[in-house]
């Protein structure tokens, strides 16, 4: 993992000191709420529906065990004993109190963490593939690139007041686990015909009230040109992005209104005017950063016969079948930890569970943990021979749900239960669906499918790219839910199609069940839900959703 250098340490410590002073002045009345609000937001502190909420940055979803234990401690000392993993791989605390927030920031700084740029119209926390550095299908580990972007974008003076927030994701695998096409900039690390590694730059994607799949801005950007080129993109956006209407201020609107060819010309012109050597990063610096992400010392082809033998335990076998992913090193697995028990809010994790995951990471995964945009956690490097012992540890911590990628592995924003922007609740809907499909056998029979729920049009729950996407709205004091079908967050990214009028929560769950039953009756071979949907189209699914079939 990346370790802070003296500059990182100084920046974080000075920011804590600065915010402590700002909070003191606010409490003393030297700052009004209007003056203080942008300052607290720049430190990830929101005032939500019922209380303050603090959003902690987890750069590219990578944590070490010490950091996770510190988050557990913070949740108990200053909050209500739990945290919430967000769809940007961050962690939120729902109940901090203003006078204590500077102490929280100090405790975070002590483990090289902070809340920079988890709010506001700046470049937000860069996200990445939670399997980075572990998966066999990547060209290289994307984390050094993500770290480079973190360093470049952190407190970048030119991009602190953009027209709107700006989200970047990086992946290095053809299987997109970072939803790069739904980001302001998506970066795919690729190889060209000569075998050189560079960047496929995608721009103008995004969800929110105007969902758009990003388009290619640059098919292959040489590695050394990354920062100057992104600087050019950001300058074009900063200059021409709309500031008159916040709903049209994202770069996706600029790209759409300008047209990708004209936008590319503007970027190229800006790039030509730059002095790239001013910000281009040397090979030596890239190498320095990359060294921090060197693979752990894996054993050479460790014996995994114990793993195969342990599969005689049906529960373990089911968990292993569903929650493990292929590792680049023979004899190892990537372990997905579900934070989706059907009776809890997706992504919630208690302090005890955080400590349990940290301990298991130390014991079995070189102390590394990842958070995922699906609101789960990952132990990236577990020896297969240790999987059964790990599973027992997860079971003891009530973290052994075997539903990764299945119908109850629902992405869900906090909704009206916590968020000041929400129009309806999303958590109870998620729980009702998970409850309806709680039978593990039934879930496995249905197979891979995604349900994503947002409690308002801002789409933090990624409903536009769910196989089934649900949007919570409210009319005359009554919640109702609109349904989209056919969305896809993978490398085949697609925006779902709206089905029609909305439903009550109860009608919605019944309608989803009818669609699932229809899929099971209609699928051929190994078709997933999305495959059947693509083959038969939306109409028959709508028929059963509305009970007309």
């Amino acid at each position, binding site marked *: 993992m990346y370790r802070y250098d003296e500059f990182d340490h100084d920046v974080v410590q000075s920011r804590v000191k600065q915010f402590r002073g700002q909070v003191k002045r606010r*409490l003393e009345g030297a700052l009004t709420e209007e003056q203080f609000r942008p300052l607290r937001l720049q430190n990830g502190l929101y005032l939500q529906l*019922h*209380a303050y909420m603090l959003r902690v940055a987890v750069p590219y979803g990578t944590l070490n065990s010490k950091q996770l234990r510190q988050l557990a401690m913070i949740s108990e000392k200053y909050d*209500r004993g739990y945290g919430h993993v967000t769809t940007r791989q961050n962690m939120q605390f729902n109940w901090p109190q203003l006078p204590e927030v500077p102490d929280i920031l100090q405790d975070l700084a002590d483990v090289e963490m902070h809340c920079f740029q988890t709010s506001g119209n700046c470049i937000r926390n860069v996200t990445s593939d939670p399997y980075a550095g572990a998966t066999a299908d990547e060209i290289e580990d994307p984390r050094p690139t993500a770290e480079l972007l973190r360093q470049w974008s952190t407190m970048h003076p030119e991009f602190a007041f953009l027209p709107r927030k700006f989200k970047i994701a990086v992946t290095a695998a053809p299987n997109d686990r970072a939803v790069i096409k739904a980001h302001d900039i998506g970066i795919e690390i690729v190889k060209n015909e000569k075998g050189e590694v560079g960047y496929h730059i995608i721009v103008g994607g995004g969800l929110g009230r105007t969902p758009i799949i990003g388009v290619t801005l640059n098919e292959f950007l040489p590695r050394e040109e990354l920062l100057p080129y992104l600087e050019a993109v950001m300058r074009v956006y900063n200059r021409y992005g709309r500031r008159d209407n916040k709903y049209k201020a994202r770069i996706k609107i600029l790209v759409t209104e300008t047209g990708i060819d004209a936008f590319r010309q503007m970027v190229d012109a800006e790039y030509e005017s730059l002095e790239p050597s001013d910000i281009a990063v040397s090979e030596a610096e890239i190498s320095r950063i990359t060294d921090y992400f060197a693979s752990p010392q894996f054993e050479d082809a460790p014996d995994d016969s114990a793993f195969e033998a342990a599969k005689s335990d049906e529960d373990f076998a089911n968990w292993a079948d569903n929650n493990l992913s292929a590792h680049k090193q023979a004899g190892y697995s990537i372990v997905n930890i579900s934070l989706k028990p059907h009776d809890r809010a997706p992504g919630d994790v208690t302090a005890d569970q955080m400590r349990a995951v940290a301990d298991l990471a130390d014991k079995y995964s070189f102390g590394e943990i990842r958070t995922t945009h699906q609101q789960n956690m990952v132990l990236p490097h577990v020896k297969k021979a240790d999987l059964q012992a790990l599973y027992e540890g997860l079971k003891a911590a009530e973290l052994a749900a075997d539903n990764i990628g299945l119908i109850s592995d629902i992405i869900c924003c906090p909704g*009206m239960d916590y968020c000041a922007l929400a129009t309806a609740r999303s958590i109870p809907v998620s729980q009702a669906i998970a409850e309806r499909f709680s039978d593990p056998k039934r879930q496995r029979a249905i197979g891979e499918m995604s349900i994503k729920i947002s409690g308002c049009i801002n789409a933090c729950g990624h409903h536009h790219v769910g196989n089934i996407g649900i949007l919570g709205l409210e009319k005359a004091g009554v919640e109702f839910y609109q349904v989209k079908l056919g969305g896809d967050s993978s490398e085949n990214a697609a925006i779902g199609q709206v089905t029609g009028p909305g439903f009550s929560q109860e009608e919605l769950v019944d309608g989803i069940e009818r669609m699932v039953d229809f899929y099971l009756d209609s699928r051929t071979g190994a078709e997933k839900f999305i495959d059947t949907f693509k083959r038969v189209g939306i109409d028959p699914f709508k028929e059963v959703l509305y009970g007309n079939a």
Partner: protein
Amino acid sequence: MTANELREGYSVWLTEDLTWSTDYADAALTEDPEIIAKMQSVADRDVEANEVVGAYFIDIDPETKLPARYRERFRVTGPSNDLGEEIEKD
């Protein structure tokens, strides 16, 4: 009249004795213009004094006596799912 406490951030409502309560049951419900004016001035004073932030009046359903707007009803009831309550019980 409702607001959020500056320090804790919790939702609060102005009571008949013109103090702030985290319990909606204590909230003053009135259509009397004189009392409304008095409530506004107290809210302005307490915003100025950095006791509360974002003070505003809400409409009440005359039958249920609960806030008319869905969002405001939620500020009264609190989240329908708070893991903190479960942890506290344990």
